């Protein structure tokens, strides 16, 4: 085992990321007995990004109403479009966006009023308008975006990244998935480690709670004062030392002693990381008070502490899934989150952290430019929403070594299907890993006789959007 760790560490040192591994040594002590999957990796990638904040508009935000303006829809309003594709449900005529778009920044990037607050950052954003995925259903698309496969139980992107880079902070989990009010559909599968060691699994936190005890399991003993617990730990460690003295050289016992101290300290550190009351008033104001905005502020505190992969779900279930009342719905959803997202970018920039933090925003797919036809049980008989659309949608990235002020790829003139410079989810994964200095073809784990990858046998890096 030690050999493996050393090899891994060597690899990472050569890659200029040595610090990243310190956490991992405590995480996987004695873990893998197999060949070190990182051993043969070419260490030539230089990277800026060290961590990722993935803001997940779960349910599927509409591209035509946010970052991919389609004025032509007005002309066809209510009429059949010259192109029509099958999505999950039946849709009818064209549905022009009820939202105004404006140009921002030197790049003149067009952003709808829903995210006007992001206008100030237009020249830092890299908007990919030509995303596509495999099917117009939530579950498989969530799995595709999170784990790189629609059906099979594969490890999540956050687990892969932690497996590849380790954690920079001993006292906090390396992968934290926040979601106010519960879990997105498919629950824990979204942040599972599958066949990777369980330590790489995401820790889910329900940010509806403000109390730290409910945020992280067992983070505090509800019945002991610090002094009392310290006294107890002191006794424990004395016993453990005496036990070890009779078993000289037993490294695992030594690690266990060390680890209790880590756990003890983690109680303070984790409490601190999630406590946004510690932020000055003007910072809290800048972010705003909704759950989603608060999550952004927590994310910044976690980023500062070196948490590797942070996912912010908008809410439990699939909140962005506006099959009807999309105008009201999207306005509310953007209203809940845009201030925090803009503040997060501002804040990271001010602290000089934006370069090493990659922010990714988007849903598991987009929505149709056509109106969804009313059906009982789905959209309450209303005709003012959009269906799922896996053929074309938008995601944007910011910081972490992407080229700001860029609009990459195109959907057709109505926003139905990505037609130019198409980017599949596999390509997005390859690109994110690349930005972190990981070669997606080299980041493998041997399981069941085969080397597995996040991107399976697909994916290429979108070089044009790299700064």
């Amino acid at each position: 085992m030690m050999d493996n760790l050393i090899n891994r560490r060597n690899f990472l040192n050569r890659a200029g990321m040595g610090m990243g591994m310190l956490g991992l040594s405590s995480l996987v002590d004695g873990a893998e007995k197999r060949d070190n999957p990182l051993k043969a990796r070419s260490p030539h990638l230089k990277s800026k990004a060290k961590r990722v904040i993935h803001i997940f508009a779960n349910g599927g935000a509409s591209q035509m109403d946010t970052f991919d303006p389609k004025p032509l829809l007005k002309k066809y309003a209510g009429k059949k479009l010259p192109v029509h594709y099958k999505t999950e449900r039946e849709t009818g005529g064209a549905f022009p966006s009820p939202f105004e778009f404006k140009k921002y920044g030197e790049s003149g990037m067009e952003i709808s009023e829903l995210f006007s607050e992001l206008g100030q950052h237009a020249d830092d954003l890299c908007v990919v308008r030509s995303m596509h995925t495999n099917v117009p259903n939530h579950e498989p698309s969530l799995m595709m975006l999170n784990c790189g496969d629609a059906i099979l139980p594969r490890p999540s992107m956050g687990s892969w990244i932690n497996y590849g880079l380790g954690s920079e902070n001993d006292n906090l989990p390396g992968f934290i998935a926040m979601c106010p009010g519960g879990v997105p559909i498919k629950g824990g599968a979204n942040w599972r480690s599958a066949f990777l060691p369980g330590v790489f699994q995401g820790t889910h936190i329900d940010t509806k709670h403000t109390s730290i005890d409910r945020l992280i399991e067992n983070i505090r003993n509800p019945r002991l004062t610090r002094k009392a617990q310290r006294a107890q730990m002191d006794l424990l460690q004395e016993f453990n030392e005496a036990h070890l003295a009779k078993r000289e050289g037993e490294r695992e016992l030594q690690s266990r002693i060390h680890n209790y101290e880590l756990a003890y300290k983690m109680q303070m550190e984790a409490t601190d990381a999630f406590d946004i009351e510690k932020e000055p008033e003007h910072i809290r104001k800048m972010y705003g008070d909704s759950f989603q905005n608060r999550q952004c502020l927590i994310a910044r505190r976690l980023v500062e502490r070196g948490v590797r992969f942070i996912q912010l779900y908008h809410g439990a279930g699939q909140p962005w899934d506006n099959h009807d009342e999309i105008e009201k719905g999207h306005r509310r959803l953007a209203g809940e989150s845009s201030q925090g997202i803009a503040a997060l970018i501002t804040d990271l920039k001010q602290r000089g952290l934006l370069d090493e933090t990659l922010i990714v925003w988007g849903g598991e797919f987009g929505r149709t430019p056509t109106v969804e036809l009313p059906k009982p049980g789905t959209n309450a008989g209303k005709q003012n929403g959009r269906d799922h659309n896996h053929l074309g949608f938008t995601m944007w990235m910011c910081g972490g070594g992407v080229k700001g002020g860029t609009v990459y790829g195109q959907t057709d003139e109505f926003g139905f299907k990505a037609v130019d410079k198409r980017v599949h989810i596999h390509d997005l994964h390859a690109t994110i890993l690349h930005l972190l200095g990981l070669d997606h073809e080299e980041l493998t784990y041997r399981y069941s006789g085969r080397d597995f990858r996040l991107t399976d046998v697909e994916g290429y890096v979108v070089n044009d959007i790299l700064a």
Partner: protein
Amino acid sequence: MRVFLVFLFCWSLGAQEFNKEFFKKERALHWSYQDPVNSPVANAGNSWAQNKIDEYVLDLQKKHKLTPSEIASKETLIRRAYFSLVGLNPTYDQVERFLLDNNPKAYENLIDELLASPRYGERWARHWLDVSRYADTRGYNFTSSSKFPFAYTYRDYVIRAFNSDKPYDQFIIEQLAADKIKLKNKQDLAALGFLTIGERFLGHIHEIVNDRIDVTTQAFLGMTVACARCHDHKVDPIPTADYYSLYGVFRSFTEPKMEELPVIGESSDKELYKKYLAKKEELTKDLKDKQLEVYEKARKEWPQAASGVIDYIGLQHVDKKPKFRDSKDRPQRRGLVNMLKNYIHGKGGKNDPFYALLHHTNHAGNDKHIAKWAQDHINKKETPKSLKEALQKASPKNRKDVYKVYSDLALKVYEAKDKNQYADIRDALFGKTFDELYSKVSHGAVVERDERNMLRKLENKIVDHMAKDGAPPRAMVIYDSKKPFNPYIFNRGKAGDRGPKVKRRFPQIISKSMSHEEFKNGSGRLELAQAIADKKNPLTARVMVNRVWQWHFGEGLVSTPSNFGKLGLPPTNPALLDHLAIWFMENNWSLKKLHKYIMTSSTYMQSSKIRPQMQASDGANKYLWRMNIHRLDWETLRDTLVQSTGTLKHILGGNAKDVMGFHKENYRSVYGYLDREKLPSALNSFDFPSALVTCEARVKTIVPQQGLYLMNSSLVTESAKALSAQLGAIGNVKDRIRFIFKEALSRYPSEKELKRCVDFINDNAAKFDYRRPTYEYGVAKVIDGQLKDFKRFDHFSGARWQIGKKFPSKDYQFASRTERGGHPGRTFPVVDRVTMYFDAKISLDGTLKHFKKNGDGVFASLWINGQKVKSWHSHKSTTKTVSETFDVKAGDLIDIIVEPGKSDNSDGYEWSKVLTFTKDGFSQEHDFNAKFSSQQGAGGKQFSVWDALVQVMFMSNEFLYVD
């Protein structure tokens, strides 16, 4: 690029011809495909060696200049044996008895005793359940229940199999083909759970079959056949054809519905069984009623839907452009749409007096004969009169006209008020065709989404109910399909891309002395099982003895126990592995005999102490110069914890239990409920396998989450309290400490330890000694600004705390406390009272809601020792009730009250509120509405210094590690 990658993957073994020569060559190249042989021992007769295992071990040690360790102490041996075989701790008395037993066979007898204990099966079944990816759920399942209510019967089968020392070859055959052999005990049908308890991938058949191929070949053969799904195995001699041979075997199955699974025993309890049946009947009736309702609605709407369908297929046929999506306002019932389309198009339509014309029209390529056909149809005797009339009137000239006639007619039938109108075709539309179609389609297809969701919910209730106590056990079986699936290669693993045909047969690489003819008996599942269990198979015995070795030593002789292929690691001691494999088969595949053989070797019995010289040359202990230390796995950790508290209750299987919290009675972890989609986080932190796929060996991690769990979780702290609660009558501090050591560690403390513990108790008692606050609900009076006369609600109605059984009461009117709020009496405020037993800072956070316009609303306030410190008012409004922080002392009363104003008219309110206590770095919250149904009496001690001492035992490395 993508094309290139695919090419790379397919390239692998090149354009290899998989002929006899190839396999012969391959067998010669790799150790695991060759028959095991008994090698001679070079160092026989060494006094350290107790059996042949030791001689093989010594051979290699000598070669590497290593020497073995001395035999471990008896204290160590007994704990090690308990850990190995039953996963529990020996009690102090058991240790004592063993230490005093001078019989030279004492150790051997101990092993026999443990092997005979039912606890042995529980321990070893769990090992096997890792391999067989056991869980109680099927994975994500849309809105349907994901539960496998009868997975437990497989778990119980495995436990029984180990306990009864079922020969391993039989164990294999039953798990793969219990449905195809004569069983002595029909309970053993549950063995098929090995195949069926896997994830179901939302019903994707190729994935289900793949999962079964994967688990079967890895578990029994140490082969990764699933790698050959898309291309020939890149390294091992497994052509993709062999994958599809097995695909054919595992694809050829049918699976009964949940409620039709065979019953394999009786309900554990007659009374419960009766209740179960009654409830099941009730739930089934609910479902049937709703189904009928949906059926009737669909039937009523049918002609209208049919009219839409006719339009649709008509337009599609004539215009080539489907416009069904625009058939506004007509119910769609999409499942039936397809059925009707096929019906009209097929034989049924051809012979149907009503639809026949439509059938022919639908098949026509042009309009040439339409007029004539229409006329023929009019002339036919059996054509319904209404249709004749409609056709006569319209005299259709082209296909469009025909569709229109039918479509309009259907609509007219739907709209007709008088039932007698169109009686002749009403039957064609309402009756025969509809019922025939309806019976053929699944509900998923025929009902609308909201109806489906409603039916799903009811179906889920039945499934959940079948997992409840009282339900009789059923086996999760599969049967052979009537016609076995004749497999062919899916090129690149894609089902649509059909490659050459293959036979259902055994993987060709395995042994020249075995048959690779096509399986003849149905699916071939039994023949496959027999081939795996065949003594001529060089892999099966090796793979299993290696697993057993791993579960005893922490590391297998082959440290990739499910991969004996070229990518796996070679055995560290091939001669020993072969010897054990042969020995195992010679001893009738008896696992109990194998355990004893291994455990009575000096190799197993030696000390785990590190000798620096040995450590320097073989730090990984590859050559077994010492025993490895073991950290308790999750199950052993939890089981020994609750065992120490005396609350471990032994049962003989049954439904999955909650094993995450601490209960009055606790069951062994093997009986715990496992949802493969969401394992409890404690299991993840303690390296429990994911159950998504077969697990060959658990990873071993040391993470802070484990420490946090031991320090703070309710299981550990409650266990500590439960054990220290037994100190009761023991007065002497030293005796108390001795008792704790004895129960937790099965030994007495040394003098030094005793002294240290006495100091700990004396020095720290004050730090721990405070009591939990009590919480009560009641009424009181406000007199001259003072809160007086608190009277506790003494009756709980199930929804409401009140005084006396009668409500509203004469004296206290509507005064009551409900889960979310309550209602004050005319002059009686409702009071939530907290009594403090320690000094702390407190603050209140909450939201008060009052709903009605009538009256003057409610007045809420916070009181400390009878004095109001904060107040709020709510009248048809929502008020945030946030207080500043106050200091309170032990003995103080905190009252949180709601008063009526001048009137108590419409004074129902809701108040969610949380009181936070902060003290020296820790904080506790009390949510007044969360534990509503029990008012807590006198507050017990939070966590005494004695509780803390017990917990130290549970957290100690001595407790967590076995030497």
